[in-house]
């Protein structure tokens, strides 16, 4: 059961801090482990060593060797451990693709990949560190669940669930400060999208940092007397098909918003569903198949067309295309 905030403001702590404090709690279960590849402090914070001391043997630094770390995690899961393993999003997904596929998915391992700072969140680390393709490459892996939490409440709740859940998971997570979307006592269901705002003219389907932008876009559209529904599609795979279809039927036009390449991400997943089952106009906000670059997040969101204004523009276009218009 989710409870949406009445006002959307910045979180009081960074997402990295939320992750770290939640992991500290989860590691009271002796089987829960956090594996790092020398980017531990970036997520766990400067008190990482204290956390490691509190939970001997549970927080291990594998060194800068992500491929080995994935294999080690799969081995740990084979003997009943519950590993979360973190690196920056490109390194935990792109660099380790075959290990995730063979040692992980194909083998039926139970590991939780945590990729921090996806897409424009990589900011000043620039194009080498800015994955717009992490979801794309992993979405074609059978039996892998892809999650992109929108705020700290969701991240913490999903982390707790993943201790109990078996299977292969990729959590696409920020480190910086997000907008608080959900009240603290919200509980999320993996695979079930959340309606954050009702609307009848168009639906904006978003994930991660784009959820806050989608809510801002809905405000812009509201002033133009356009009622936009906003849905948080935090489970990118397996996607909530019935939600997509309900929105297609009830609002007749869709906009997807993702901090990712428009190829094979959330937008593609939505088009696959509507294309086969209920064709309606779909407009995709996302990175137009190009590489990242350095900059602050605000600049990068403008540069790649990921702002609330971009979403609103696509929403108007989707509405205009209803009934077969160009």
């Amino acid at each position, binding site marked *: 059961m989710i409870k949406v905030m009445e006002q959307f403001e910045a979180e009081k702590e960074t997402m990295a801090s939320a992750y770290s404090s939640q992991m500290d709690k989860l590691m009271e279960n002796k089987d829960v482990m956090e594996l790092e590849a020398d980017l531990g402090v970036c997520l766990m914070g400067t008190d990482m060593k204290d956390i490691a001391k509190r939970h001997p043997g549970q927080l291990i630094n594998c060194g800068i*060797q992500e*491929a*080995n770390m994935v294999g*080690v*995690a799969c*081995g740990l899961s084979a003997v009943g451990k519950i590993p979360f393993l973190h690196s920056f999003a490109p390194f935990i997904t792109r660099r380790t693709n075959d290990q995730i596929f*063979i*040692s992980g998915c194909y083998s*039926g391992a139970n590991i939780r990949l945590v990729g921090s700072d996806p897409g424009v969140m990589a900011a000043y680390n620039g194009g080498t560190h800015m994955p717009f393709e992490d979801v794309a490459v992993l979405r074609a892996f059978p039996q892998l669940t892809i999650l992109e939490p929108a705020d700290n409440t969701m991240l913490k709740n999903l982390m707790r669930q993943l201790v109990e859940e078996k299977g292969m998971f990729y959590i696409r997570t920020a480190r910086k400060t997000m907008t608080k979307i959900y009240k603290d006592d919200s509980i999320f269901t993996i695979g079930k999208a959340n309606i954050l705002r009702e609307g009848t003219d168009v639906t904006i389907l978003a994930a991660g940092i784009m959820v806050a932008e989608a809510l801002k876009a809905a405000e812009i559209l509201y002033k133009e007397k356009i009622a936009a529904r906003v849905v948080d599609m935090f489970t990118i795979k397996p996607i909530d098909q019935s939600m997509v279809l309900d929105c297609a039927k009830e609002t007749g036009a869709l906009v997807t918003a993702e901090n990712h390449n428009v190829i094979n991400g959330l937008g593609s997943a939505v088009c696959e569903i509507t294309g086969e089952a209920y064709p309606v106009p779909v407009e995709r906000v996302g990175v137009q198949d190009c590489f990242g670059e350095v900059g602050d997040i605000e600049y990068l969101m403008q540069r790649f067309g990921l702002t609330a204004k971009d979403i609103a523009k696509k929403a108007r276009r989707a509405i205009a295309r209803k009934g077969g218009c160009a």
Partner: protein
Amino acid sequence: MLNKEELAKLQAFAKDIRIKTIHQMKIRGFGHIGGAMSIADVLSVLYGKWMRYDPKNPDLPERDWLICSKGHAGPAIYAALALKGFFPLEWLDTLNQPGTRLPSHCDHKKTPGIDVTTGSLGQGLSVACGIALGKKQMGESNTIYCFMGDGESQEGQNWEAITFAAQFGLDNLILFLDNNKMQLDDMTENIENMESFTEKFESFHWDAAEIDGHDYEAIDRAIEHAKAVKGKPSVIVINTIKGKGCKFAEEMWNHHVSVSEKQADEAIALLEQA
């Protein structure tokens, strides 16, 4: 030290592993014969003497684990597992047949007794490290055995795992490096000359031994030694002959070959006479 009776038992078991491996490939008409034959003697000593396992309960928590990172040697392990009763011998007629439980590469989800899925080279040792680390943390006494090919050692991930295993002092991990000196395209030394494996591993702080991988006494002694090593992982470099014991394979380039009924029958007959 093996007594006469033990030695005879292990030799007979290795012979059966080889016959059953050739048999599997004969039915399908092809297979990775070379790298399966080269590890048959070590498999015999492991499953015949050292490994703890229960064929009726392949997931027994107290068992020793075997990870064959060179996953294409699966048929030799299937032979050992079937002979030890993990599954019916008739399954060996189904290698690579549609819907089989015995695919060409090791698959934990399909085959009882196969502990880890492998096939994409270079990944098995990392998984073995995770298992060894987990078992060590739990204070359990399982030994984790792993096979890696000499050609396979060219994969960089192995060297990540080799440093990891040393750093975490995984003394419950014993790696057999199958130094059969050939890989798919050419002699290993012509592609990437690894020179001395023992020197490399020793410089990575492993305990390293090098033996004739077809000498039962040497295999037995090396395992006994490796199990006694404390504080670091062990590698046993096994110098082997690719295709060992399978006449037609030994005489040809043998990574993955066609196996005719006639060739297989002759090779099996020779093994039976030996």
